């Protein structure tokens, strides 16, 4: 789960792209090695099991999918499938494969490879994250080969937005070692030195051609340096050792902008959110008075009122964030609830609301109705400068209403252990990484039985009426075919979440990237992989010379 709780994928709407650098007059050069850093070792090279960001990036760069979401236009485009038809009842998706596509070992892609991929994906023993939606379909899912170039995916019931789900499923050869290829994407894994780097070499049989008929990709290779420290990453970028930086920290962005404004780009509001939640798990080893505070909607809403989101966006994110309205980022124009407004910063209203619930301010300390001073801790992931600073600002804001808050940065495994296993924490500050506009991808967060329903995960039956109502709306979202009905269902979820504040949303980060002038063809977008979504068309101004560095 890294710095995020959810990884999802799929369809997007908001068009937040920047213009292509003005080098159109120059013909693309072939060759060279593109260098960038990833913050952790990929957990797997098996595309079916990728859940962490580095593994997903490797899957994106090496995997071939039937249908690809164009990250710039936000539209689905044919990829390995050149065409498709969905039956009227929505239960059969027939895909016609692009002829002449070959794996990196030269073998031709056939329908049986597609079916082998889906059969493996549906294997319960594999527990593939990309198959979650398919496995919950009543009546299941079957893949049938019609001929060598045609497959039919047959579902027990209609699957809303089924095509966008295909963007995450890398097709593998029927007889292959999943983690060792052969590959269908523009690159293949050629070298991996654990803890140091991964080299992706050009796939010699990649099927895409440029407008001149030349084979893509232009680059010879991509070197992914495993570089945990982002300060060092930026130093290496400044020294010319790295060409691209994605998801740039706002402080580092500002520093780089001061020195080289042409190299950095604020792409706009991203889909990701930053939020605080209180532990409401009944099994939590917390004193009863704390459980009572955290279960109180008035308490949570008062906290929400007392946090100055504008200041967090301005001070911590240097203006490269926007106060959050709720669970959906303003970038997600299709799904955001137009009637929601950002919670106002109003500590007086927060205190008045707390007073109505029996809390009172004695001197500088807020006391509950049983005489306990309001003190709690917020855990967050250590080493994340922006979260530690957000914690310090929240601490300062809540001090103004008499609450004593400790901020405890923990290493990520300890943090996950507390929020997912022992429930030994008061509150948590984390982010939610979203790569999918369709909220169905967040089912595990919103369903009360979901493991990522963080404030009280894995409930056998909904603990509160409002959680029961969220469950009903989410189920409607999953089965309803009408876009308008689905939108109404998720609007209701957003209203409930804002009313009940189980997650106190703080800000939506902006997507910040840095691009070396050496790299051409980059069109940064808010969606991951921000600068690499059109990797097959990126090229280096110095061509093959760069690989000699």
């Amino acid at each position: 789960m890294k710095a995020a709780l959810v990884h999802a994928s799929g369809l997007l709407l908001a068009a937040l792209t920047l213009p292509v650098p003005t080098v159109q007059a120059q013909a693309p050069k072939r060759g060279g090695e593109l260098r960038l850093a990833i913050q952790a070792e990929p957990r797997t090279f098996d595309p079916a099991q990728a859940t962490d960001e580095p593994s997903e990036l490797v899957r994106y760069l090496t995997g071939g999918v039937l249908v690809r979401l164009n990250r710039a236009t936000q539209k689905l485009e044919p990829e390995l499938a050149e065409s498709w038809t969905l039956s009227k009842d929505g239960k059969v998706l027939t895909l016609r494969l692009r002829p002449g596509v070959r794996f990196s070992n030269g073998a031709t892609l056939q329908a049986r490879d597609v079916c082998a991929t889906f059969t493996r994906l549906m294997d319960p023993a594999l527990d593939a994250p990309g198959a979650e939606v398919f496995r919950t379909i009543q009546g299941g899912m079957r893949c049938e080969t019609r001929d060598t170039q045609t497959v039919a995916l047959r579902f027990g019931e209609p699957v809303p937005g089924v095509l966008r789900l295909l963007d995450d499923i890398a097709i593998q050869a029927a007889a292959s070692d999943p983690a060792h290829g052969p590959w269908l994407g523009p690159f293949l894994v050629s070298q991996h030195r654990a803890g140091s780097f991964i080299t992706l070499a050009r796939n010699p049989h990649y099927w895409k051609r440029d407008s001149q008929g030349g084979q893509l990709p232009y680059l010879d290779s991509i070197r992914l340096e495993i570089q945990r420290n982002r300060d060092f990453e930026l130093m290496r970028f400044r020294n010319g050792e790295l060409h691209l930086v994605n998801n740039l920290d706002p402080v580092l962005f500002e520093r780089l902008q001061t020195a080289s404004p042409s190299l950095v780009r604020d792409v706009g509001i991203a889909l990701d959110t930053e939020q605080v939640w209180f532990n409401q798990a009944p099994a939590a080893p917390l004193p009863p008075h704390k459980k009572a505070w955290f279960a109180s909607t008035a308490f949570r809403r008062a906290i929400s009122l007392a946090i100055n989101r504008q200041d967090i966006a301005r001070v911590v994110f240097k203006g490269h964030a926007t106060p959050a309205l709720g669970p959906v980022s303003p970038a997600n124009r299709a799904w955001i609830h137009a009637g929601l407004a950002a919670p106002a910063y109003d500590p007086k209203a927060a205190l008045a609301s707390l007073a109505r619930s029996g809390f009172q301010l004695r001197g500088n300390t807020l006391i509950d109705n049983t005489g306990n001073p309001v003190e709690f801790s917020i855990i967050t992931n250590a080493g994340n400068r922006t979260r530690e600073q957000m914690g310090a600002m929240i601490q300062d804001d809540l001090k103004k209403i008499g609450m004593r808050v400790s901020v405890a940065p923990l290493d990520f495994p300890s943090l996950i252990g507390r929020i997912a296993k022992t429930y030994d924490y008061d509150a948590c500050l984390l982010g939610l990484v979203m790569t999918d506009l369709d909220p169905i991808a967040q089912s595990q967060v919103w369903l009360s039985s979901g493991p990522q329903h963080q404030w009280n995960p894995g409930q056998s039956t909904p603990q509160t009426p409002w959680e029961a109502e969220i469950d009903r709306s989410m189920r409607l979202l999953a089965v309803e075919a009408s876009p308008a009905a689905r939108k109404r269902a998720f609007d209701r979820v957003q209203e409930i979440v804002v009313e009940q504040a189980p997650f106190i949303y703080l800000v939506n980060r902006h997507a910040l990237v840095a691009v070396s002038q050496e790299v051409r063809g980059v069109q940064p977008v808010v969606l991951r992989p921000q600068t690499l979504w059109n990797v097959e068309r990126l090229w280096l101004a110095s061509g093959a010379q760069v690989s000699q560095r």
Partner: protein
Amino acid sequence: MIARRICASLLLMLFIISAAAPWIAPHPPEQQYRESTNAPPSPSFPLGTDDLGRDRLSRLLHAGRISMLLAPVAALVSVGVAALIGGLCAATSGLLDRVFMGAADLTLSVPWLMLLLTVRALLPLDVTPWISLLVTFALLAVVGWAAPARVIRASVAATLRSNYAMAARARGAGYWRVLLKHVLPGTRPILTAQFGSTVPVFILAEANLTVLGLGVVEPAASWGTLLKEVGMLATTSQPLLAQYWLLAPIGLVVVSVLCWNVVFPARLTT
């Protein structure tokens, strides 16, 4: 001699300024002036402000209290424990000596960063910054006794075998009299030197631990927390001297560690 005097004066000045921080700091160290973040030096903020708009000078002064006052206290505890154990081992030898020196060897071979990490992980989450601070220095004191104990043991054993100690025993002096009148004065330079060399080690250890996220927690200020911010200078394009005020914590750490090292070994030779 002049260098020692200058360093002693500097240390004294740092002590006084650190102790007086609550009265002389222009602002509360945790106060966030959110309209003046990352401000350069000005009459209101003589060393500018940090990312959250906190006055750097006030934080530096309060940070000095932690490093200049708690590090010597922890060193005193550490050397005190070492003196007790080292003296006992030298005086008794035999089983007790072997047990304690074995424990010293064990302590020296423990990866203390891992030990600190484990102990910090066991602390309650809502621990106050001051408790985290005390725990950090207490741990330093606990793991810091072993090396001085071995030195002190050797010194005490040598003194007990010396001619004047033997002569005193021969003239009928009791065991405790020999210990207090002859051994203790004889080992005082060793104790002073051990104390003097442990303090800068603890000052640097706190700074290193905090930079690693294991020491003092926000919003408390220590030289370690301030040094974390200096690390950001590596990514800035401006010349270091253009932001000279950010170098103040480094300057203070270097000056204080240097002064401790100059003052105490010099006394050992007198």
